[in-house]
């Protein structure tokens, strides 16, 4: 479904992503893990067009931001496609730090997520589905999203991403900054999303939980993929565990 080959991203001559290749098959839940600053978010941003967008609004010379390699989504090359068109193809990015539209209500945020849908009925159906998945959002639907708790904001961010009928959902560090109970709640919801038939690429640092629920995993460090495989296999590797996963 998603196939990344030899992707390289440079910011100001610093190579942030160094020739990585990665694939996500339809129906899978795949994780991309690694320490802070490994380049996980940058990888997602490259996939969903934000690096391209950043390049287009960048003030300095055009080689300050470089993106090389190919990204293929459902058989189409998208590495030069603008972000909003990538979203329209069903590749949805739920960004780091949740990024709710803070001055809008929960409901308006969800409607913004459904921006690409034409049919009113479809929007209603998705809204019902999201409220069913996150009953908390329904209770808070008229609250201004900037005043939600961190966990609620994360639910909102995921709910908003679900509103547009994603085929592949990329979620960036949903558990960061949340209390342990909230974390497991978020992970349970992500499992549910997978069971709903949505393919998920999950960026996380919380390796111990994530490895129990994923189909496959990639470990990223300093812009390179240093390991790949099923959770239990990766955990057998002593060096990997100690040095890169912090377990």
């Amino acid at each position, binding site marked *: 479904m998603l196939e990344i080959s030899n992707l390289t991203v440079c910011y100001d001559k610093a190579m942030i992503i160094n020739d990585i290749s990665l694939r996500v098959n339809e129906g899978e839940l795949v994780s991309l893990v690694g320490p802070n600053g490994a380049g996980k978010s940058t990888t997602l941003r490259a996939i969903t067009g934000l690096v391209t967008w950043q390049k287009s609004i960048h003030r300095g010379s055009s080689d300050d931001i470089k993106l090389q390699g190919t990204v293929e989504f459902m058989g189409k090359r998208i590495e030069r496609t603008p972000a*909003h068109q990538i979203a329209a193809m069903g590749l949805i990015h739920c960004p780091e730090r949740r*990024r709710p539209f803070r001055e809008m209500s929960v409901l308006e945020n969800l409607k913004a997520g459904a921006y690409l849908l034409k049919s009113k009925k479809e929007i209603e159906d998705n809204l019902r589905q999201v409220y069913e998945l996150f009953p908390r959002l329904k209770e808070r639907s008229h609250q201004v999203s900037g005043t939600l708790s961190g966990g609620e904001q994360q639910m909102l961010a995921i709910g908003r991403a679900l509103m547009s009928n994603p085929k592949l959902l990329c979620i960036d560090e949903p558990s960061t900054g949340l209390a342990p109970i909230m974390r497991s709640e978020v992970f349970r919801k992500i499992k549910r999303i997978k069971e709903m038939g949505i393919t998920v690429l999950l960026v996380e640092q919380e390796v111990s939980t994530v490895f129990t629920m994923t189909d496959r995993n990639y470990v990223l460090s300093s812009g390179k993929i240093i390991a790949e495989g099923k959770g239990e296999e990766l955990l057998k590797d002593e060096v990997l565990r100690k040095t890169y996963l912090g377990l």
Partner: protein
Amino acid sequence: MAFDILITSLINGSTYAMLAIGFSLIFGVARIVNIAHTAFYMVAAYCIYFTTYRLGFNPISAMLAAIVFVAFLGWIVYLIFIRPIREHEQAVLIGTIALAIALQELMLIAFTGDYRTVPALIKGFAQIGHAKVFYQQILTFGSVFVVLGLMRLFLMKTKLGLAIRATAQDRETANLMGMDESRVAMMAVIISVGLAGVTGAIIVPLTTIEPFMWNHPLIMMMAVVVLGGMGSIKGSFYASFILGFAEALVVFLVPAGAFLKGAVALSIMIIVLLIRPAGLFGVQFEEER
């Protein structure tokens, strides 16, 4: 006297509100500081003068023609002149100053520097105590509220309105929701400049038209935006009436106050910047890396 002050502050306040809201909109969505905003307001006024006296349009069609023309002009200018330099704030600032002066000079060439007026839509006035309220003033004030009400409906209830608000809060995330950020910015420009045109059209029967008429509203509009908080439409609304009132007080109560009009705005602007730099309702933009 008290009544005159009230009328003047309401009329001026509502003009500033219309201008400042358009200005805030374009800044919020496209991060463009459009110094030429009030110059478009001037162009609308001249447009009405021209179509009324040279082409014989009736007042309503003159107004509509002016609004459409100004919105169109704004769109063309944006496409060829602003869009290529949009991300370079300083260039946009200098560019729009140049644009405002160019429009001023064009009007000066086309219409000379003479003071012009257009007739009121409805003549006559009501006498309330010692004060006169012209029907045109009531009409203008009413229209402002209708326009601002429609604007609010548009922003809150339509899909484009939603995209505009989303983009104003966080361009990057708006992009991720499938909103074409550059198209939304363009629509915001057209609406914003169109609103400047509407302001010109509504206010023109109450003012004199001359090529420098954009200067004072520009200063007031900037002060409004600083007081209300950059990017906040609600803030612009309240700040406009506060400043309109302060200005009217000075003009009516201080000897030779009319000469101090600009100073009022600038003083308030400086005080606000010193005490509360984010303004009354400052919006914090999501930082974008």
